[in-house]
């Protein structure tokens, strides 16, 4: 066997090249925004008032009747899911050896991400804090059923 130095050549794979840069940037940009969103979220839900104990349908309904919190949670949903999924994709890329496995896992990740984003978005937008026929004591205080 002879070890022959090959002519300098272009890198191993040129596919999806610039994607990585934008992914990298997105992780940072979304990270910064998420700090405010997540800590704001945690603060109001877990720290203020009764904390975790207070969380129930009424609590959520109360929050989402306010467009401010709707936008907040929606933004958080999108940013965090894409951030998390992209992070998971990196990890999958690192640790999978077989190309088929890698492809499957990455594809599943993005599918789950998409489903959850659609689901979450629908929930936030089509959410009715005072569903008809629900037991009144479960509803937020401003509902007419009360």
């Amino acid at each position: 066997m002879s070890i022959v130095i090959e002519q300098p050549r272009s890198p191993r794979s040129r596919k999806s090249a610039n994607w990585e840069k934008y992914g990298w940037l997105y992780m940072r940009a979304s990270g910064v925004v998420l700090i405010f969103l997540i800590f704001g979220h945690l603060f109001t839900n877990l720290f203020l008032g009764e904390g975790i104990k207070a969380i129930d349908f009424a609590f959520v309904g109360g929050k989402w009747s306010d467009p401010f919190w709707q936008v907040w949670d929606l933004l958080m949903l999108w940013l965090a899911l894409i951030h998390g999924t992209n992070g998971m994709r990196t990890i999958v890329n690192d640790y999978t050896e077989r190309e088929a496995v890698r492809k499957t896992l990455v594809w599943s990740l993005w599918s789950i991400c998409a489903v959850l984003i659609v689901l979450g978005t629908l929930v936030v937008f089509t959410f009715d804090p005072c569903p008809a026929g629900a037991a009144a004591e479960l509803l937020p205080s401003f509902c007419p059923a009360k």
Partner: protein
Amino acid sequence: MATEFEELGAVPSFTVTLFVRRFNPEDGQEARWQDFDVEVHGTDRVLDALHKIKWEMDGSLTFRRSCAHGVCGSDAMRINGRNRLACKTLVKDLDITQPIYVEPIKGLAVEKDLVVDMNPFYQAYRDIKPFLIASDKPEKERLQSAAQHSKFEDTTKCILCAACTTSCPVFWTDGQYFGPAAIVNAHRFIFDSRDEAAEVRIDILNDKEGVWRCRTTFNCTEACPRGIEVTKAIAEVKQAILRGKP
């Protein structure tokens, strides 16, 4: 005064146990640890201890080495779990009450004992076009200010020992990542004011296996026996890619 000068260098000898990771492709056995008790002098380095083993106990112990003082980059190995040059690591500076573990650098195929296949590593280096690309044909030297020179001087110190790349947890995962050493050498040219092909190298490193795989774990910086600020160089290359120029 006399006694003071006579005492100098009077470092006692002592005995240590070395556990060396052995592998011989020809004997059909799996890789295994083998221990040796070695008497070393106070100023002996791990390389000296390995030589003692090779020369006095087991001639088949195989490792690379040449210069013996940290300039040729032959003998990067994992000593007590850290990548170092055997010729720059004094035995007495390790915890000698415990056995010393010596094994090949990680992430490259082991050929025999402490010798690994360096070709993928060299290939990544060659892939980033590690040479000056300039179109002008000056008759004398090209001019360069001290300030321009200082931008890349740190990364000219690289001896291609692979201590950095083989300490990088991202490289360990699949060996496809270009690795810090290649990026360091790209940095050396990207930031050289005489070079005209920064964009080409930037483009190469903007690859899926390029700089973006670096997770700033700093293992490379800690491992570099030349004290190169590897992670900093990588960060500068990332910024250059974002800007599209050095």
